[in-house]
């Protein structure tokens, strides 16, 4: 049975913006043919995903929210995470397109504690890899200015960072293997 939740202007903030899991809102109207074509897809997906909420809003009856987001074409599907709109799909699209978008949002904004931890760890290591290169470049620049002490300190810091990053990456791989 469909688990799609009907939301209104009145409960939009509570049901959508305050949700602790990612949400998709399908803005639709009864007279919109293409909207009716995608409805069964959302009904189906709502039964499959537990960590993702599917909602729909009738724009004829709830003009305020549609206006707030500048909606002037439907079907319009918007994706919200932590009260922020993070993505959208305009028009009637195949199931696979919607499914991919849901997966993309879930990967980008994990909801379980382990997922969140992995996300932080991944972005941390990616960030370190990116900046250790910059560290080295700055170090080289300092050396060219003739300040060897600063250069050596920066180089040492960069090395320490690379080593700790290596350990973090190993930890991440161990986690991934366990999952």
């Amino acid at each position: 049975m469909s688990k799609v939740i009907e939301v209104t202007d009145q409960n939009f903030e509570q049901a959508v913006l305050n949700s602790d899991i990612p949400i998709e809102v399908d803005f639709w109207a009864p007279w919109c043919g293409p909207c009716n074509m995608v409805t069964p897809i959302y009904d189906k997906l709502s039964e499959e995903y537990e960590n993702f909420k599917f909602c729909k809003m009738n724009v004829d009856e709830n003009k305020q929210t549609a206006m707030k987001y500048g909606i002037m074409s439907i079907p319009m599907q918007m994706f919200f995470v932590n009260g922020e709109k993070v993505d959208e799909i305009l028009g009637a699209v195949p199931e696979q397109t919607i499914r991919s978008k849901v997966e993309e949002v879930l990967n980008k904004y994990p909801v379980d504690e382990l997922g969140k931890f992995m996300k932080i760890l991944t972005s941390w290591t990616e960030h370190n890899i990116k900046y250790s290169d910059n560290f080295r470049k700055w170090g080289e620049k300092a050396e060219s200015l003739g300040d060897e002490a600063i250069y050596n300190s920066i180089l040492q810091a960069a090395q320490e960072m690379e080593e700790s990053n290596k350990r973090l990456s190993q930890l991440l791989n161990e986690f991934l293997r366990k999952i």
Partner: protein
Amino acid sequence: MKRGNIIVIGAGPAGLSAGFYSAYYGFSTMIFEENILGGEAAEIPFLDNYPGCNKKITGKELTDKMVQQCKETGGEIHQFEKAVELDFEGKQKFVKTEKFKYSAESVIIASGTHPKVLEVPGKKQFQGRGVSYCAVCDGAFFKNKRVIIVGEDSRAAEVAIYLSDIASITKLVCQKDKLCSEKILIDSLEKHNIEIIKGVELKEIKGELNVKSVVLSGKETESTKEIETDGIFFQLESIPNSQLVGESGIKLDDNGYIMVDKKNMTNINNVYAVGDVTECSVKLVSTAVSQAAVAVMDIVEHNNKSL
């Protein structure tokens, strides 16, 4: 692989009619549509030039009936299933979609056309926020607002007339020097107080969250003019959806339309083409339906001969 007698590619009026007639004459029939059922015809505001429809019927209402009739007769409609590979070399024809592989003795191409897209600054940014391609789908959002229609033929005129009943101000921007439309529609544009701005180019769409204005320029003078509007509806010329069939060896004319004989057969035996994707100069729902009937009756005839 799934086998059938006839595969139809496209589910606009031509494809749905081909699907219906095929199923009606007892062929196992599969119809594939990559987008919405009804095709571009589902977006026609009112069909008052289709015989039997003396009371105004919308394109969506008519194509919904066609879908229902096709299904009830036994046509198997696969919506949102795009054909990605065609193999028409042997006696058995093969169609590979994004999901599965199918084969049949005959194939009817009814892939239709798509509207030309004008790439101007602001188009992408305001898509769904004032920039629209479907008056029937989005018209309700423009009640008592100002709209501009960009196009130069009967379709653009029909859309402008439809929107003028909803919007407060309707303008038709024709990039050519002359609107290529029937007199009855041109008279109707005047009756509906629709201003026609001819011989200008659309340069930019401006706005904040939604569309606020468009910038037009004279074709020769380079002088620009900004017109305030809440919406812009594109209704430009149609482009045939024939790239995939062209790659399969089917002959196209210089404009990309599929060339067919009197029975609507292409240069490949047992592969037919019907509707807007063909070189037929009259692009109406009625011609699409009749072409479909002609093609299926030819398959019926060939089938009877081989029995």
